[in-house]
């Protein structure tokens, strides 16, 4: 990744020594998708919890209702977590099904752009040597020491970053979209393979919940690491694209 000329850091307190270099780390398409998703995912989780409150039982298989065996009874999600803030299934569905289009077509657009501009190939491609036990162990130790960047190549994602982004972009979000579609009676008629893929509508609904829980875990870990890696620098880089290479001594 090219290292741009050092940027003056007007918004930070004057640091002793020479200014640290800044690199152009996130392209506009990545930044746009990130913030659209940040809003969309909160709306999807909030409205999804209202929809779950309508029937807080999860089943496996094609059918599942009150007399059938549920593998999980979810708690009642409180109003401060749900959209809307009071129970209204109709309005929650309006939010959920409108922003589902933003999530689905947003992901599709981002994927196309990221293949064309080689973001996926350059930044997310997992190389075999990165999966060696030695490399994983080394990166894990670095994480535990709160060092997240390779000093020789600071713009590159570390292997755990790559794996988690790959899991979210190619695993969890597509799973959310396709299990969501599998719950649509009209889509089940149009694309019956959706049901074969997930093992029935109620299984798809359960997997939708599990994948959503996975996204919640990702969001928590992601935000925690943003804070540990230097919140101001990380957030600013996702707004302007420019990221200051952290001082390893401090980190």
């Amino acid at each position, binding site marked *: 990744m090219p290292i741009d000329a050092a940027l003056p850091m007007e918004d*930070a*307190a004057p640091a002793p020594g020479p200014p640290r270099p800044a690199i152009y780390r996130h392209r506009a398409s990545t930044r746009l998708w990130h913030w659209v998703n940040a*809003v969309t995912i*909160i*709306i999807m989780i*909030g409205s999804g919890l209202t*929809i*779950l409150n*309508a*029937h807080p*039982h999860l*089943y496996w298989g*094609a*059918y*599942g*209702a*009150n*007399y*059938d065996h549920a593998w999980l009874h979810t708690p009642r999600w409180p109003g*401060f*977590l*749900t*959209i*809307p*803030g009071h129970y*209204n*299934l*109709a*309005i929650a*569905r*309006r*939010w959920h*099904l*409108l922003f589902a*289009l933003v999530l689905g077509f947003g992901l599709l657009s981002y994927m196309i752009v990221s293949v064309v501009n080689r973001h996926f190939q350059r930044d997310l491609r997992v190389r075999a040597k990165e999966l060696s036990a030695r490399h994983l162990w080394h990166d894990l130790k670095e994480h535990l020491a709160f060092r997240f960047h390779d000093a020789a190549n600071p713009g590159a994602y570390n292997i755990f970053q790559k794996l988690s982004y790959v899991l979210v972009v190619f695993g969890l979000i597509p799973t959310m979209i396709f299990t969501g579609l599998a*719950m*649509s*009676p*009209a*889509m*089940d*008629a*149009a*694309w*019956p393979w959706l*049901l074969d893929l997930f093992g029935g*509508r*109620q299984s798809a*609904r359960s997997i939708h919940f599990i994948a959503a829980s996975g996204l919640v875990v990702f969001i928590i870990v992601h*935000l925690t690491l*943003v*804070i540990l890696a*230097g*919140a*101001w620098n990380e*957030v600013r880089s996702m707004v302007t694209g420019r990221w200051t290479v952290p001082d390893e001594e401090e980190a």
Partner: protein
Amino acid sequence: MSGILTRRALITGGAASAGLLLSGCDQVAQVPAFRKILLSGDAMNQGLQRALSDRAALAPEFSEAQMSPRFRVNGTHKPVNPAYDALLAENFASYRLQVGGLVDRPLALSLAQIRGIPARTQITRHDCVEGWSAIGKWHGPLLGTILKAAGVRSSARYVVFTCADLMDGKPYYESIDLIDAFHPQTIMAWALNGHALSVGHGAPLRLRVERQLGYKHAKYVMKIDAVASLAGIGLGKGGYWEDHVDYDWYAGI
């Protein structure tokens, strides 16, 4: 700005903005211009689904072994309506399904006549808007057969079902378009799992429109009207739930 302050500010700021977003959604949903966008998702999803799917695509059908052991009753368990009580007391002997509106030959069909029409039997999944599903075996004539017998005029666009259960003193009603009305799995069911419909499941006659959610499957159907527009019927949004709590008219998703 010290690192700790930044972290604190960001955590607080992040949590506050997520909270604001959650509560802000309720405020935004009240703004007329945004509400219009929010409610337009219905038509967008309908357009997309219709574009992606064959109009005649069939809902999945199941074997007897895959049926729900017990098919729960939902919504109205028994209409509170003296006229319905009278029909029920005589086992629907004087029940007549009225078929009218934009048709050439209005019909009044007795239950015996309806049971005499060649019927379809289908084991399908009923999906409630709340999230649960139940699989049952439905039996009854195609709605298309009845509509063809009545001679639906080319000016008709929708079919409206008026029911015996009263909501706030007015009959429950629902509507579908002609694509779903003439779909080969859209039937007027008079039996579930081999028995005449129970009161809870919509006796004597209910709609099955298999590619949409449960609230579209009107129970206790008394009258079927072919219409050119949904304006002027109820509050104009095509159904009781659509009128009163903003449920989507197109419930294919």
